[in-house]
């Protein structure tokens, strides 16, 4: 019997504060493809993040993980599901064709100059779904 589990895909990048505030597309959407975020972590660089509510991993409608600003302490890895990192929609398939992006929620993020972002996700096709 064949193993059917999808390959795990990883996005990693150090985003600038401007990219986080404007919204950064980590994984572009593609017709017929469905992304499912299975894990993620972030780390504030250059200072603790402040002023914003959270930094979200989202497709624009489904928030896979919301990393609350209280957990975005300088150089601290904040994992999905830990305190201040609400991961309600981990494992929820995102809408077909939509991208995975990282964006602040609420006011613009301040102080931290960058945010390290690591997202683990799987890809499935609309036909297989």
């Amino acid at each position, binding site marked *: 019997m064949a*193993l059917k589990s999808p*390959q*795990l895909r990883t996005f990693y990048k150090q985003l600038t504060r401007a990219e986080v505030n404007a919204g950064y597309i980590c994984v572009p959407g593609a017709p017929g493809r469905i992304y499912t975020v299975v894990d993620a972590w972030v780390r504030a660089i250059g200072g603790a993040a402040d002023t914003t509510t959270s930094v979200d991993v989202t497709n624009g409608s489904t928030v896979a993980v919301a990393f609350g600003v209280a957990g975005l302490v300088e150089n601290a890895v904040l994992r999905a599901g*830990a305190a201040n990192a609400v991961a309600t929609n*981990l*494992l929820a398939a995102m809408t077909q064709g939509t991208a995975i992006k990282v964006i602040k929620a609420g006011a613009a993020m301040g102080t931290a100059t960058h945010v390290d972002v690591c997202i683990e996700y799987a890809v499935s096709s609309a036909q297989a779904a």
Partner: protein
Amino acid sequence: MAATTTPAFPKVRVAFGNLTLAQVNANSRAGTVIVPGSAGRTIKVVDAWFRALGGNAGGATAVVLEDTAGTDIVSTTVGPLTQNALVRAGAANSTATGVGTYSGKDKGLRIGCTVGDLTTCSGGIDYCVLYTISN
């Protein structure tokens, strides 16, 4: 017996989803297969997490990820499996004895529970298991 051949750059695969209480309690609590065995292949789990939905987990002593021969890989006691809390392998009350160890050849992976039936978490258990495959 031939040695397990580890690829130089193994792909990590992910098995994820939700099991109902009935699926976790099935087969005398051996549970449900989430990754079927494959002839000639061995699986190595490298990470995993669980999450109880619909209530705190109760009834059982632990929710267990094991190979299809019954060897424990991750055993998470129900204590930290409170509603919606993500519990990672190796965290407090989650023994990860078999993480990083090859399971037996041809074996798959399953999730079950120990001692008593799993109860109370009406939405079942979310699981996410990362693993590699070797020949």
